[in-house]
């Protein structure tokens, strides 16, 4: 007997079932990760929207009935809460060659996976905003034996306009309460 492959959308998954847009989003995120891992930071900055918000809230242990407070809020402390200016400053700092937390340079690999397109909405400028969720596993190795592993979830709003993709917002949920590495000098 031949097994039949059911190509219909999985009923309970409400994500966008458009192969084209999913494929493009995935290519974009993998390309972005590759730029970071090859330290092409200027090319990476070029993928960011001028109005980007880039935020990694704190992760807290809270009661199951208070899970809404698991991540620190928009006006609370965070690990990062950045815009384009400070992201550019971070790249400039790395390039000085005397930012000792990144000197010698970290060896970093971003594994980006579980990519789902949650929705696609038109934006005012004739483009589209593509809401994408993904997982990351980032391995960082420094100096001789320093290893940091960062694992978590990302929620991105990507902007697609005239065939060009940019990142309009990124929220990073790190699966760690007490941060187990001494510094955050890489991009997520």
């Amino acid at each position, binding site marked *: 007997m031949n097994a039949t492959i059911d190509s219909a959308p999985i009923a309970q998954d409400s994500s966008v079932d458009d192969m084209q847009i999913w494929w493009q989003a995935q290519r974009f995120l993998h390309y972005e990760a590759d730029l970071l891992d090859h330290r092409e930071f200027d090319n990476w900055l070029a993928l960011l929207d001028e109005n980007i918000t880039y935020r990694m809230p*704190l992760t807290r242990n809270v009661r199951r009935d208070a899970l809404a407070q698991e991540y620190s809020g928009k*006006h609370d402390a965070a*690990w990062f*809460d950045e815009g384009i200016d400070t992201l550019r400053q971070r790249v400039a700092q790395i390039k000085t060659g005397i*930012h000792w*937390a990144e000197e010698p340079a970290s060896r970093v690999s971003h594994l980006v996976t579980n990519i789902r397109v949650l929705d696609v909405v038109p934006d005012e400028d004739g483009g589209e905003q593509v809401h994408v969720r993904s997982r990351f596993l980032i391995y960082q190795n420094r100096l001789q034996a320093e290893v940091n592993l960062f694992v978590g979830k990302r929620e991105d709003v990507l902007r697609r306009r005239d065939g060009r993709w940019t990142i309009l917002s990124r929220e990073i949920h790190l699966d760690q309460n*007490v941060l187990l590495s*001494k*510094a955050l*000098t890489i991009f997520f």
Partner: protein
Amino acid sequence: MGHKSIDELVRAEEGLVSRSIFVDDEIFQQELQQVFSRAWLFVGHESLVPKPDDYFVSRMGTESVILTRDRQGQIQVMLNSCAHRGMKLCRYDHGNNRTFTCPYHGWSFSTDGKLVEKPGELVGVPGHATHYKGELDKKQWGLKTVAQVVNYKGAIWATWDADAPPFLDYLGNMRLYLDAALDNRDGSSGGSEVIGGVQKWRVKCNWKFAPENFIGDLYHDISHRSVDIVGIGPGGGKGRRDPSATRSAICFPELGHGLLGRLPFYEEGPYAPQYARYPEVEAYFRQVHEQRERTLGSAMRVQTSVGTIFPNMSFHGRQPRTLAVFHPISATEMEMWRMYLVDKDAPEAVKEAARHYFLRYSGPGGMTESDDMENWTGATEASMGAVSRELYFNYQMGVGHAQPVPEIPGCAVNGEYTEENARIYYRRWAQFMNGLSWDQLMAGSVRVEERAA
């Protein structure tokens, strides 16, 4: 450990401190006993527990403690360990509880003064009548509570030692410099709050590297050249801070506290605009500056950049304005906590501008602080070897150049670049480690006067 005496390990007058005090396990255990179970420790800020029954889980030394506001509004600090068989009572970082019930066998403890005489008293025991035949003396089996707790302008301090002197004596005239951080920018007393959320992260260094750094090591500024080049200051442009007058290394030799900041002065300078890009923020800082002139008049005042209160709490007094505490984990690891302070009644836009600035400056993602941790972990790692741990660190800069500060009893100034502040810090550490009595520890301290303003 080569079994050197404490006085051989810390030769403060010569500016020599043995590397072994930063890596040795036995010394670490001794510290938990002699320093962390006796000294006044910073455990949090009142704004972390704004409402009755709110709690926040903090640490004192290596131990977990519960900071809570009871139904009567009093702040309590209790060991987070069940009196029955030790289980951690509170497994969340913060929350709101009327009683703390143990997950293991269900004993419950309360801080409600209507139910109990002593905060943390045992109120509920499953099977008290049947299994225990009513014979368990509940009064005896409450939670261990700290011996003393103080709310100083919102900052909460506690000690396990009933004989410890009152917090204000322990703080001495360092109080003036702590006030400069905790007081409202308009010069009125108190009025700060913590921006929601506490950053907590592990650093593989001895916990003493951090307070030593913040007590006044301006010399290490060179390691922040990369961020100075980029310029992350709140006003944009060069540098990474507010414009500030020349800083001096100021210390309280008998108490072990110290800072980088300004000597007493009597008049505010003219307001220097710094937030040109943010008119609302600029207007606020101008307005509080003028208000400050009116509030303080010609009274004496000081300014703090960074300071340390012995043993493990440091703070930034201006922008960024933060509180930090360095919890020991082992001889070669600490957990660093940072909280960010703003004036409670500042407009939202001002709080937001401050928050963004603080986060890009401090914490593990801070463009300044990330390099500090690199230094402390590198120095710890390179001091672990059998050969290296026998060496001494050099703290000989400016030995013998301390000058008294006439306006502030118990206070000394050492110019801009000096290692005197570190020397007095390690001398204090040695006094605690030698097990001196509180009478001996406080013998040289000066009685503190109320601040005039």
